[in-house]
């Protein structure tokens, strides 16, 4: 059986639908990981000891165990204690929290690297520490970590394939289903790879645009 890419157009709609799911899950998880990452970073740096502890545990779980296991835990495990999440939501939460932990590390470093004079200038105007963090320090820290966070988000896109195991019909699972029908793994996996690559390029393009836009305000 030779290669025959001519069967792809017939199933393109399925693959494109899979693409949409992949994009949806990636964007949702990326946003979650960004904002939760900031939140985790602030907790890690400024919360009282007691409040930090549960977050330490979350961090340890999400950094120290496989993402696959985390997804199983959220999707299949939580059902047992009465939390029955749709697969898409479970996937977004799993991916989002997993990468939030990584983003938090980056943001913490960036917050500490913001010039001390910034906090001082804000406090001198009469802002509280919380206000100064929110309006002055964190926005600058976030600007500084856009490039490494962008890299994390591309890793997130690739890892989004893992949510196929809990049944989200994203790109990888869609390709697998078509393979089941047509017995043409090479063609469909290659097509999926090409589509991932295109999404990847678009994400890099967005990242460059954001970087260029904020260059002036750094």
């Amino acid at each position, binding site marked *: 059986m030779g290669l025959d890419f001519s069967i792809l157009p017939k199933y393109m709609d399925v693959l494109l639908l899979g693409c949409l799911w992949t994009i949806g899950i990636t964007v949702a998880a990326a946003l979650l990981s960004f904002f939760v990452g900031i939140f985790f970073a602030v907790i890690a740096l400024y919360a009282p000891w007691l409040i930090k502890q549960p977050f330490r545990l979350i961090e340890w779980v999400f950094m120290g165990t496989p993402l696959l296991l985390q997804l199983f835990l959220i999707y299949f495990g939580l059902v047992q204690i009465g939390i029955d999440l749709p697969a898409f939501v479970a996937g977004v939460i799993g991916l989002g929290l997993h990468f939030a932990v990584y983003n938090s590390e980056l943001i913490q470093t960036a917050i500490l690297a913001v010039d001390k004079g910034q906090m001082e*200038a*804000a406090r001198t105007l009469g802002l509280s*520490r919380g206000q100064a963090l929110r309006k002055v320090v964190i926005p600058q820290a976030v600007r500084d970590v856009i490039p490494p966070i962008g890299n994390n988000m591309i890793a997130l896109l690739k890892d989004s394939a893992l949510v196929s195991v809990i049944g989200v019909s994203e790109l990888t699972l869609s390709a697998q289903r078509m393979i089941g029908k047509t017995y043409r793994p090479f063609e469909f996996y290659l097509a999926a790879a090409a589509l991932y690559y295109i999404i990847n390029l678009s994400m890099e393009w967005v990242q460059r645009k954001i970087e260029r836009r904020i260059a002036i305000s750094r």
Partner: protein
Amino acid sequence: MNEQTKFVEIRHAQKSYGDLEVLKDISLTVDRGQIVGIIGSSGSGKSTLLRAINDLDPLTGGEVWLDGVQVNKNLPYRKYEKHINEMRQQVGMVFQHFNLFPHMTARENVTMAPIMLKGLSKAEANKLAEEQLDEVGLLERIDYYPSQLSGGQKQRVAIARALAMKPKLMLFDEATSALDPELVEEVNLVMKKLAEKHMTMIIVTHEMDFASSVCDRVLFMDQGVVVEEGPPEVIFKNPKQKRTREFLRKHLAGAK
């Protein structure tokens, strides 16, 4: 509460970092509308004294009073934070390195605190930004980011930002030391304009000419004490203390 004249009063200010005593029992009063210059070599404690006034570097001993209210009151943490934020709103501070917020335009730098702390509407805030930036001659740069401004322009925006809170007192910590020589004058002019409006100011400076033309009184600090203070004519032309004379001689030699 206090007599009108004692507008700023520092009583027996003492500050140590571990074993290092940086301020040694300094007392100082500044009247309303007065302009006081502080000179002295690097490391003599000028910044520490200035920053104690708005509690940026808290004293380890002594008291700071502003307009009849003690700044460094002994209060529980939360109450103290509220109190100190209110006090700081009344004291503008200008730093050597400007410390403008780089992610905000000149307009946003000026309006951020008034919007957050005084609840100004967008329209009021914009009017305020226009007024304050016009005052420092930078109205046409209102929507520029700090990265698009020269050092002198940055410092003028920083002054506008401080003035936008309508402070009672302005503190300047070597406001022109980081500037290229040709940019010093534009900032000095803004400060002179403030002086003409009788803003109360405490100015740490290395510029003896500027200090003698603007200040009502000049303090010479060395190793954490005020060695000598008096009107600029006396301090610069006819100082009584040997240490003052030595400092001025070295400083003038260095300036040449």
